[in-house]
């Protein structure tokens, strides 16, 4: 259980994230404390990744199922939002047509049926959550029903990712082929070029992250969460005790995909493009390392890992682009070999042996299936 102190800490961190960043942005430009405009979408992007990391942690850290397909759910959410943004360009595209530019380019005469309704923000948002959720539900139902787990599950989710990427790379699939969707102009009538819109998106992402954190926290503290942890540690025994592990896994798997879709939908207006390269299998694997670096089996670790790894990535790809893959590669190796509990476990080692906090114990300290 969180103590009152921990709640207070959470409130302080949330307030810092949501108030200090806009505040520093508002400081006059000549002040050393000024936060330049271009950093706002970058921070917003990090927060989106933190949501993904929470989703990943829910399924991997707490339930023990490693997914290499979360990049697809993320991209699907992004595509749904991208479709809305494409439609809201209106006739201001290069070809000044009612249709998105790439359709004019492909000489399509009318909107394909699956683009209908994406003129409405509400519908697009719903689809950004529903499509990843539905795909995850169907895929998960097949996979968990035949008790596929461990590395097998990882491999077939990777195959799914690969297949989806190939599908979206085709021009005829109807999502802009390898260029994807881009050149967005406005969201809900607000220009995407305006710093204020970007700040608004950042704050929305921050609130979404907070909501996701609270939801995940609620799930893992409920009885359901205990069953999930039990599934992670000894699935056979849970099954024999009379729990329907299929339903439990399916539920958390679908929730995780929906959260990824949410993150994707928030991500696209901030970076201004969505294309099939978001679906390359390596992105999905990278998501796992965010969680592993921070500390899987802890929500705070997942968020911390996502922010740290992506912050490092942003810094290295600018300062020393050749070294980034080395850094990432060694992160994968070092964390799995020497720090299975992630950064959070360092803190816990310092405090150890502390009170019997059961749920937040890093999963890696137990045996994995």
């Amino acid at each position, binding site marked *: 259980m969180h103590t009152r102190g921990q709640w207070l800490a959470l409130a302080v961190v949330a307030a810092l994230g949501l108030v200090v960043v806009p505040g520093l942005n508002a400081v006059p430009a000549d002040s050393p404390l000024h936060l330049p405009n271009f950093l706002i979408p970058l921070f917003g992007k990090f927060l989106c990744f933190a949501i993904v990391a929470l989703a990943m942690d829910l399924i991997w850290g707490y339930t023990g199922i*490693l997914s290499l397909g979360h990049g697809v759910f993320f991209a699907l959410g992004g595509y749904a939002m991208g479709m809305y943004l494409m439609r809201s360009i209106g006739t201001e595209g290069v070809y000044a047509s009612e249709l998105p530019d790439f359709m004019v380019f492909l000489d399509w005469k009318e909107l394909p049926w699956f683009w209908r309704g994406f003129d409405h923000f509400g519908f697009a948002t719903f689809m950004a959550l529903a499509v990843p959720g539905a795909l995850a539900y169907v*895929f998960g139902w*097949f*996979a968990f*029903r*035949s*008790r*596929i*787990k*461990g*590395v*097998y599950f*990882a*491999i*077939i989710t*990777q*195959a*799914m990712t*690969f*297949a989806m990427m*190939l*599908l979206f*790379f*085709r021009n005829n699939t109807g999502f802009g082929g390898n260029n994807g969707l881009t050149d967005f102009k406005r969201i809900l009538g607000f220009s995407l070029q305006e710093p204020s819109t970007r700040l608004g998106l950042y704050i929305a992402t921050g609130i979404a992250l907070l909501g996701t954190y609270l939801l995940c926290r609620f799930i893992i503290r409920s009885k359901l969460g205990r069953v999930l942890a039990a599934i992670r540690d000894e699935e056979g025994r849970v099954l024999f005790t009379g729990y329907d592990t299929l339903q439990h896994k399916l539920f958390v798997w679908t929730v995780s995909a929906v959260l990824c879709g949410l993150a994707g939908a928030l991500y696209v207006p901030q970076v201004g493009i969505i294309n099939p390269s978001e679906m390359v*299998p*390596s992105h999905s*694997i990278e998501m*796992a*390392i965010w969680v*592993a670096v921070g500390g899987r089996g802890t929500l705070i670790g997942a968020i911390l890992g996502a922010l740290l790894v992506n912050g490092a990535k942003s810094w290295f790809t600018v300062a020393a682009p*050749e070294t980034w*893959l*080395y850094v*990432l*590669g*060694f*992160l*994968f*190796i070092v*964390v*799995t*070999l020497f720090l*299975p509990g992630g950064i959070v476990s360092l803190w816990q080692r310092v405090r150890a042996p502390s009170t019997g906090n059961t749920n937040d114990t890093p999963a*890696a300290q137990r*045996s*994995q299936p």
Partner: protein
Amino acid sequence: MKHVGRLAFSIAIALLFSAPIASADFESAFRGLGSSSRTSILESIEHLGELNDPRGLGALDALLDKRLRVDDAGRLFIVSEAGDSFVDALTGQPAEPDPESLRTPRINNRVRRALKPVIAQLRLRSPDPEVRLAAAETLRRRPSENAAALIRSVLEDETDGDVRDALVVSLAQIDLAGDDPTQRLAAIETLGRLGDRNLRTQLEAVLTTGPTGSPLEADGEVRAAAKEALARIDRVSFFIDLAGNFFYGLSLASILLLAALGLAITFGLMGVINMAHGEMLMVGAYTTYVTLGLFETHLPGLIDGYILAAIPAAFVVCGFLGMLMERGVIRFLYGRPLETLLATWGISLILIQTVRLVFGAQNVEVANPAWLSGGYEIFRGLVLPWSRIFIVIFAGLTVSAVWFVLQRTPLGLHVRAVTQNREMAANLGIATSRVDMWTFGLGSGIAGLGGVALSQIGNVGPELGQSYIVDSFMVVVLGGVGKLAGTVVAALGLGVVNKFLEPVSGAVLGKIFVLIFLILFIQRRPQGIFALKGRAAEI
């Protein structure tokens, strides 16, 4: 046809006996080649083609090569390739014209186009079958009406099968364009019989309809024959396609097999997920590239043998790298497959970046040795590239070698023992840890061999391995973990199915279908085609 032959024969006789008249005619046409006007050069070429006199060949060749010279008197000379000596174009005797007075007749593409069939036509009388074949091929691509009579007469005593085929096709094309209905029907029959898909256009032209919808071809019999011949060509090309698809499927299967075989050992036998397996393929391919470079600088005489040196080199390099990985990282992660997956992914990133820094991010080209370039034509229209044939054979040999190692050597015995029951094997005195290392080295070395094969058929770049990793996992999982035979069957099945789906649905959709099928299949039978029976089946 007999009638045609007789006609050709009489033309030939007539040519022989009219020699004195023709000779004067020939000489004037011949001198025309040196004309300063392109139009008269063109006319002379055509005239020489009609006269069919082999004496003109040298000058025509020289004209095409820009080695023909003409002096002020209009006499023609051919300059040697080195440009220092001359021969008389008509007699072939050495000559010493005044270099000051020489001029080069100027030609353009129109002249060149006219030259080629005439030269080919004259060359058909060459004693060398290679020259005749080349000439016949040229005539087949550019049929000229003048050549018809000549081809007929040449066909009388041509013995070489390939030359005959080419001549028959060009003759049929000329005849089809002619007026004689019997000749045209015979020509259509010939085209249909040969079943060459490249000849479709000529036959389709017969069947085209005008703007009113009425056929342009008036002769109903010719139309019917053309339709029949087209159907025949289509039947033949269907079987050629089938055979071609099958062969290319087999070659794709061999590639998949080479890529997956190493994985079948490390994943199948040891239960280790090696995400860096694709990079082992890549390292193998780069080893081939380096070997080629070493041969180029140090052993240029043996350059064609570089691949024979690359095979052991790639095996050793990748095997060593694999053992290093096993000792350095993987052995600490046994029993934690998900962590192994992540750690080996990290290794793969490091390998990719290292190769990028050493060799550059661009693809490098690994040239095939001379004996692997080109192909073998099993029948008209289907050429099997030697490099693909090599891969099929190479895959077969590799599988046999792996089977031999696993089934007939002490190492194989130990590997199988450790796979079946690690504790028991250890109790019986097998150094399980060392066996792990050797097994991993073996699997990685085989991936290196796959890399050698891949370097022969495509680009070699740092990301080479990434494109194969998903496929190789699919093969191993479909085949059933721990089963070599399953891996072979799965690779064959996937390769052939992929190639047969490609023309139906396009390459990308075909691949997507295969992946979806695999995902569904694995859900139905998680243990693959060749499932282990009993308790061992629980993963």
